[in-house]
């Protein structure tokens, strides 16, 4: 199967563009990158989470000069990165439990702070990230996450969202989108796949805590992701980064399509990419070429039951309506199409 490859002009911010000045190149483009998640781990081919974790942690390592400690929840990332007796982590790393990564991060940060005070410093130069998948973040880890936010503990929490409990064999989490097939939301009966519920938008919930920084990103836009990590590291206090990471195995997509599917998630409006500070959206990544959700859904077998004869066109339409709502809510289009005019700001104040 061929893919179209586009060649970009020099001077653009293409990943790996050697013609950019060194400061403008991505961390990943540098041979001196930390490679925090070293090769040899056991992730599936095309794993979005492995990609996202390497991108994010390397960026954090550069931003902190390598002064970084990571707490990791149980899940795919933890399992494939530390297969007994090996570890692919190149930074101090602690795995405790499934639901407590945020609290463990809080504890690490507190200890570092006291140690720094004992050394006569106002604050520690060693920073903390806590990371986990959607299961460990939106479900079982939700209480600890909220506690960390509420106390404004100095931790950057990174959620790698592949929309399900993948490590245990693909089961539904509160991040699983409507109609998706998982082991516990089978493609059977009148409403195959996951039900249409309220969803749990953790980035918005993080914003409701009014923490200093919240951002979403995908593995399709490395530069954007790195910039957000580095920005987060300039801020002290509770920060949250939600990264969209396709899972070829769980989603039934081709392993070579991981980045493409992430891009489609952005371009359909299914996954809004934005930044927020202290409870208000400060920037959004506009959709460059809007595509209907079908382009995003078709390459994933977890949505296969929506297509075919007769398929579930009404469900596809509902999913499209959800994407449209995101476009309006976040103002994701430069020039709003009729019916997709942006709503007020997400903190309730009107757009200028």
């Amino acid at each position, binding site marked *: 199967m061929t893919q179209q490859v586009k060649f970009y002009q020099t001077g653009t911010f293409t990943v790996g563009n050697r013609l950019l000045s060194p400061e403008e190149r991505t961390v990943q483009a540098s041979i001196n990158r930390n490679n925090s998640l070293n090769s040899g781990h056991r992730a599936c081919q095309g794993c979005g989470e492995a990609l996202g974790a390497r991108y994010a942690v390397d960026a954090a390592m550069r931003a902190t000069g390598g002064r970084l400690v990571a707490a990791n929840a149980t899940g795919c990332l933890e399992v494939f990165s530390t297969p*007994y007796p090996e*570890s692919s982590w190149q930074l101090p790393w*602690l795995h*405790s439990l499934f639901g407590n990564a945020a609290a463990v991060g809080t504890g690490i940060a507190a*200890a570092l702070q006291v140690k720094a005070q004992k050394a006569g410093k106002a604050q520690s130069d060693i920073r903390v990230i806590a990371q986990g998948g959607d299961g460990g973040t939106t479900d079982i880890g939700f209480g600890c996450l909220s506690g960390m936010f509420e106390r404004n503990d100095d931790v950057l929490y990174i959620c790698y969202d592949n929309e399900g409990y993948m490590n245990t064999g693909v089961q539904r989490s509160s991040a699983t989108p409507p109609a998706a097939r998982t082991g516990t939301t089978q493609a059977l009966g009148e409403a195959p796949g996951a039900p249409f519920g309220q969803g749990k938008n953790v980035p918005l919930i993080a914003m409701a805590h009014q923490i200093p920084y919240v951002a979403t990103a995908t593995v399709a836009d490395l530069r954007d992701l790195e910039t957000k990590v580095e920005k987060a590291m300039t801020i002290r206090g509770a920060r949250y980064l939600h990264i969209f990471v396709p899972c070829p195995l769980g989603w039934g997509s081709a392993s070579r399509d991981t980045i493409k599917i992430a891009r489609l998630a952005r371009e359909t409006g299914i996954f809004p990419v934005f930044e927020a500070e202290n409870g208000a959206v400060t920037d959004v990544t506009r959709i460059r070429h809007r595509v209907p959700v079908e382009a995003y859904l078709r390459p994933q077998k977890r949505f296969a039951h929506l297509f075919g004869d007769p398929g579930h066109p009404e469900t596809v339409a509902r999913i499209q309506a959800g994407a449209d709502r995101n476009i309006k809510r976040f103002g994701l289009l430069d020039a709003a199409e009729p019916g997709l005019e942006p709503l007020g700001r997400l903190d309730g104040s009107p757009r200028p």
Partner: protein
Amino acid sequence: MMKQIEGSEAVAEAVALCRPEVICAYPISPQTHIVEGIGALVKSGALSPCAFINVESEFAAMSVAIGSSATGARTYTATASQGLLLMAEAVYNASGLGLPIVMTVANRAIGAPINIWNDHSDSMSQRDSGWLQLFAESNQEALDIHIQAFKLAEELSMPIMVCMDGFILTHAYERVAMPSQEEVDAFLPPYEPRQVLDPDEPVSIGAMVGPEAFMEVRYLAHAKQTMALERIPEIAAEFEAAFGRKAGGLVRRYRTEDAETIVVALGSVVGTLEEAIDAMRDRDVKIGLLSIRSFRPFPLTAVREALQHAKRVVVLEKAFSVGLGGVVSTDVRLALSGIQLHGYTVVAGLGGRSITKDSLERMLADAVQDKLEPLTFLDLDWGIVNRQLAREASIRKSGPIAENLLRDLGTVQAKAP
């Protein structure tokens, strides 16, 4: 310095003297006064530098403690009952990772039915977790054991529970000798971690261990507790040399030398037992007491040595294994393997029911004449038990048990207990 203060306050001050660096706590009766006391010391600056974190659940408390201890900070928390259960996953995680967290368990019953009063079910429920478990008989001992606990935990790199009876000790005003900061500093050096999250020497902690090595890791925890059997008496001796009084150790014998009957017990009930034993000794009954201070590791040899010459052993416990009987008595029986004697389990004080000297004397009088059942529930109201059983036998929709019993007891009268 001698003080007349509440047990919780004594523990708070003693813990503060140990210079903890991170304290995380979630409130639950009857531990609240301890964390409030320490919190005040941190807020006022008396205990500094120290991070005092108000967490959102007990599960969060132990998780924060895990992160903190892994980063090399001396870490403390406290809980009881439901809180200990809620953090159970993290309790096992802490001992599996070998993190020397010190935790006070203000012993309290576990619901349902909800009950805030003292018994030992909470810490007993975690006896297999790998945590060291020490029991205090009095508030003086509670404060002394906390100081020993930090030393023991950090030497072995294992977490430790200091168990003190909720309300009976935590909320009682008693005379205590509070050590000075200099004395504690001389006894307890700064924490030197065996493993630590440090960017200068990165390590991965908490990775999966497969069948190839899991048994070895678990065995090592057991090996450490076996080492603790040696260290606990040694540290108690070091403590006595430094502070001038006895506290801790594995067991304590009281009038057991020529005793034909020996009562075994843990915690504050030991005081009331001594009074009962003295009264019976005055009537020439050859009876003595063995107080178990270290429950994990369980001092099999010390218990055997203390009990082996007795004719009968009565284990008086505030714990209960539904479907079997005693918890402590099961461990005691193991210590007595191969020795023929009469063994009795007396379950008492569950859910905070008072254990009185008179009641103990009556029960022990029966024991001495071998008139006790192998398993006895002290002061159980058989009337209301049988009424409920009859009720359930006669009708399917018999209603909630606890509410039925309370109705049978009559209007709850506010009479003197």
